[in-house]
């Protein structure tokens, strides 16, 4: 029915199956939208946040999706600026994932603020000395860059591409993409960094405070670095999941392995920097403010030393070594294990830099505060996931996201016979 919209040379599942899938994810989406509306109309009392936890699950989700969404800017930088041309086979998907991550982050921020209708004050009455201002500006600007990077992909839909103007527009946007990619990298450097700065500048909170270079605390550079390092892992993880769901190979191994290798070295160097940072902070910064590691990691079982180990070793050194080592990297099981550990590692880092910062007492007579999210917070955090799945489903079905798909999954001239023999019954070729 919708075969005229499906790219040439690739197979897609029947429309009913696609719509059923959309419907199921759509129910989750609707649940999230309901929770979002509750938060907007009834206020943030719908959450379990409190005056100790002004930043909670949402801000963690925000930081985490932006970190893992860093795959878009870093892949773009590698392809368009550094010239790793093989990455053109995965860059579309990296852009789509980045687009989803950043639109999700903006949506979560819009729910998270107490007076959403005044959200524009952050731009209008900008305090240029606040890290959050820098985040808001660069995030919005970079989202527009991602939109610009995503538009040519939409224009490549078979039917849209037939319109000469759109065809030309898509072509021209591809031609100038290096300019946008460079701007995106510039903006990403600053907003990823500012997100690290958000916690690093809090000189009232010895757990998160860091010294730094000029106005930028060390966390500024660590966040940028970690986003560039871990972002590609998330791109690879989602690619792997997509391949499993579609039961197709979509990107060639050499492309995946190249990105995994770069990511491995980035994670390795990042983790070394993180170890230096942690050592300096534990031995100089925090003691200078009267606190020790024991104050931060022994107050409650939830935030024990295990979290430091999990972040730096399990989520840092282990995936880095696996991805650096050629034999391990080429083994899909090891590679995927490393990628999953890496994504968990960077998410844990963002958790620590938001939630643990709030949990640690600063006044000696104050107590640890723990928090668990309300269902409204959980639902609004799952909302972007559902939205992302839907956008991926639609984009995958109708847009040529994976340039190597047709080559890796050739369709024979007699599709009906082949389908019976080689492919599951629910996949049928597009009617070209």
């Amino acid at each position, binding site marked *: 029915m919708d075969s005229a919209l499906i790219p040439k040379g690739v197979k897609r599942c029947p429309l009913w199956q696609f719509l059923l899938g959309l419907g199921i994810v759509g129910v989750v989406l609707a649940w999230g939208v309901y929770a979002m509306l509750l938060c907007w109309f009834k206020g943030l009392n719908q959450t379990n946040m409190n005056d100790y936890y002004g930043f909670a699950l949402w801000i963690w989700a925000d930081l985490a999706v932006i970190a893992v969404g860093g795959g878009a800017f870093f892949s773009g930088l590698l392809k368009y600026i550094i010239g790793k041309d093989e990455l053109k086979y995965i860059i579309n998907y990296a852009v789509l994932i980045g687009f989803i991550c950043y639109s999700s982050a903006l949506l979560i921020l819009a729910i998270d603020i107490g007076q959403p209708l005044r959200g524009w004050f952050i731009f209008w*009455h900008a305090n240029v000395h606040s890290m959050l201002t820098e985040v808001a*500006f660069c995030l919005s*600007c970079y989202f527009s*860059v991602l939109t610009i990077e995503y538009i040519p992909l939409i224009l490549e839909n078979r039917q849209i591409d037939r319109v000469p*103007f759109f065809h030309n527009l898509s*072509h021209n946007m591809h031609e100038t993409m290096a300019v946008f990619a460079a701007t995106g990298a510039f903006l990403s450097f600053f907003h990823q960094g500012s997100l690290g700065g958000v916690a690093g500048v809090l000189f009232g909170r010895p757990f998160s405070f860091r010294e730094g270079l000029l106005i930028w605390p060390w966390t500024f550079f660590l966040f940028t670095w970690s986003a560039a390092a871990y972002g590609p892992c998330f791109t690879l993880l989602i690619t792997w999941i997509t391949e499993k769901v579609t039961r197709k190979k979509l990107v060639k191994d050499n492309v995946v392995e190249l990105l995994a290798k770069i990511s491995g070295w980035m994670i390795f160097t990042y983790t070394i920097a993180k170890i230096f940072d942690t050592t300096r902070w534990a031995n100089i910064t925090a003691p200078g403010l009267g606190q020790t590691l024991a104050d931060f990691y022994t107050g409650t079982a939830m935030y024990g030393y295990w979290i430091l180990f999990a972040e730096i070793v399990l989520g840092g050194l282990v995936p880095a070594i696996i991805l650096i080592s050629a034999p391990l990297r080429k083994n899909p099981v090891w590679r995927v294990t490393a990628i999953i550990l890496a994504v968990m590692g960077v998410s844990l880092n963002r958790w620590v830099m938001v939630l643990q910062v709030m949990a640690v007492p600063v006044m000696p007579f104050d107590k640890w505060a723990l928090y668990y999210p309300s269902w409204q917070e959980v639902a609004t955090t799952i909302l972007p996931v559902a939205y992302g799945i839907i956008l991926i489903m639609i984009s995958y079905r109708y847009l040529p996201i994976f340039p190597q798909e047709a080559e890796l999954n050739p369709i024979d001239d007699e599709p009906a016979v082949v389908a019976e023999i080689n492919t599951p019954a629910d996949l049928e070729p597009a009617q070209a």
Partner: protein
Amino acid sequence: MFPFSFEWIWDAGHMVFHGGLWYALNIIGIGITYCIIKAAVDTIKGKGSHDHH
């Protein structure tokens, strides 16, 4: 965001921050405008009127 906001100060912080911001915004704006205008010109010239695939 603009010099007519009352909290605006012409100090180094504002100039660096907004300098960077407007620089990026201009590149994005000029870039996309160029693409659109060039696409329109190309279309008028008759480019892309056949199916390339």
